[in-house]
């Protein structure tokens, strides 16, 4: 099975107080640490598991600068066979343009299966994967929580809302966007990543892909970003734990619950 996985390097923002930068369209990134996008981590793990269980070949792809090679090396250390970095130069790209570029790079790989994460930790759109499928004219399914390959396709589980899953058959070649929790991504040590440097990591420039301006033009633009409005929000209960506990119990009883 030939598999390609699209991965992205994103900032680690969980414990951080984000600040809006001078341009007003993005956050200040100077002090941020960067990691592989959590969904993509599950995707690459899934690809490697499929390779280990069913014989296959995995290529990891990202669009980004030299710093972004770090996540590719991680993918190689996890078990990918080769990696491709597409250098966008100074281009500003939206999901549509990103997916167009990816499709151009991946179409030559003749994959059976292409995996992406459902969405990225930063932009949270969830579009690139399925757009990529459509550029390539392939079958697709989003929010996948289980993949069982068969002869000419796979039985795929899709996570629906409200605790329901949908079991569906998708024929290869296909693009699947992978949901968290599908597997438990393995750890790769620093040494493991360094050793993976021996594997192939190719760099391709967007300008060499033969795409037109129309292909690369952005259709969706960020006009401005802002911090969440300070809504009234919660009434904060102050005091030591004992006082607070009393207050909580009082509120609960007040709302008609028998404690």
């Amino acid at each position: 099975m030939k598999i390609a996985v699209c991965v992205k390097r994103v900032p680690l923002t969980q414990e951080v107080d984000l600040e809006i930068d001078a341009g007003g369209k993005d956050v200040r990134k100077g002090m941020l640490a960067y990691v592989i996008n959590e969904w993509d981590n599950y995707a690459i793990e899934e690809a490697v598991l499929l390779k280990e269980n069913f014989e296959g070949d995995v290529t990891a792809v990202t669009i980004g600068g030299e710093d972004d090679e770090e996540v590719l090396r991680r993918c190689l250390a996890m078990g990918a066979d080769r990696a491709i970095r597409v250098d966008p130069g100074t281009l500003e790209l939206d999901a549509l343009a990103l997916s167009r570029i990816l499709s151009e790079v991946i179409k030559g790989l003749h994959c059976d299966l292409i995996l992406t994460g459902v969405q990225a930790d930063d932009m949270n759109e969830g579009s690139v994967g399925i757009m990529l499928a459509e550029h390539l004219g392939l079958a697709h399914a989003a929010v996948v929580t289980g993949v069982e390959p068969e002869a000419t396709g796979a039985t795929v589980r899709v996570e629906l809302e409200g605790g329901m899953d949908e079991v569906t058959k998708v024929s290869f070649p296909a693009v699947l966007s992978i949901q968290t929790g599908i597997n438990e991504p393995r750890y790769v040590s620093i040494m493991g990543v360094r050793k993976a440097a021996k594997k192939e990591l190719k760099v391709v420039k967007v300008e060499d892909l033969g795409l037109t301006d129309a292909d690369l033009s952005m259709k969706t633009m960020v006009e401005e970003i802002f911090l969440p409005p300070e809504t009234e929000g919660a009434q904060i209960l102050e005091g030591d734990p004992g006082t607070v506990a009393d207050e909580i119990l009082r509120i609960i009883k007040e709302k008609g619950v028998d404690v």
Partner: protein
Amino acid sequence: MGEIFVVVEHRQGEIREITYEMFWKADELCETLSCSLTAVLFCADRGPFVDEIRTRADRVIVVEDEQLGHYSGDLCREILVRLIEQRSPVMTLLGHTAWGMDLGPALAVRTGFPLAADCLDVLVEDGRPKAIRQIYTGKIFSKVSFAESAGYLFTMRAGAFPQDRAGERQGEVMDLEMPTDLPEERRQFVEYVDTGAGDVDITQADFLVSIGRGISEEDNIGTMKALADSMGGVLACSRPVVDKNWLPKYHQVGTSGKSVKPKVYLALGISGAFQHVAGIGGAGTVIAVNKDKKAPIFRVADYGVVDDLFKIVDALKEKIGG
């Protein structure tokens, strides 16, 4: 007059709530843009749906065929593309759901229309459509605008809008023949599997004690369960707890879990990611405990405690026990 499409999402004979939320917003947009509201319904049997939808839309385009009984990525996409090309709706709204996320981006590529995903709001500013989204896992809001286009696509965040505006329209039903020249389906429905079934039905509880990533260790589950029991509540949780296999899925509250409507919802160590918050929209009173004063949960909670949840849990245990 321009049209705004709302693609109806339904499952197992019921219209999903997101559809009503989209109708609510579309109502507003139709007024702003002087458009008519068109509901697009793909189904195998219009029976359960069409009468209700007619009250929410000016017209209901129905494509009725046994192949459309369940979501079919390929068929729905192809038919919608043709419909959009035919009727040029100014805006097309889909739910930001597993199916919407499968359909929206594909439509964007085929129609060439810009797509804004997971929108909290859609507005018109200076005659141009714009959308409000969240980025960086809910910490930042973003306003997006679009390149000039004949139409625009939006997938809408569940729970972003109310759904209680009763329908007063009288939509005309327009039947559309199921095209016969559609390509083979490459994604075929097999069955539904309910992962939410379990010993406990959190959707029926009056009082939920819900735990999140903040409880740190699996070992603490026991303490939390004991607390819930001693308070006469039912234990619930957010997604990370289930992802780590600390609790079975039927305890999960949120978009991929259950929607709950208890009288009181006590959230311990839950950050308040929107996927979770989406599940507590129906809760009467939300009390949140989190040591991070900037946790998003405090925006939606009625009462908040900024402290170490374990200290509060101990205090509660003492007050109840002693």
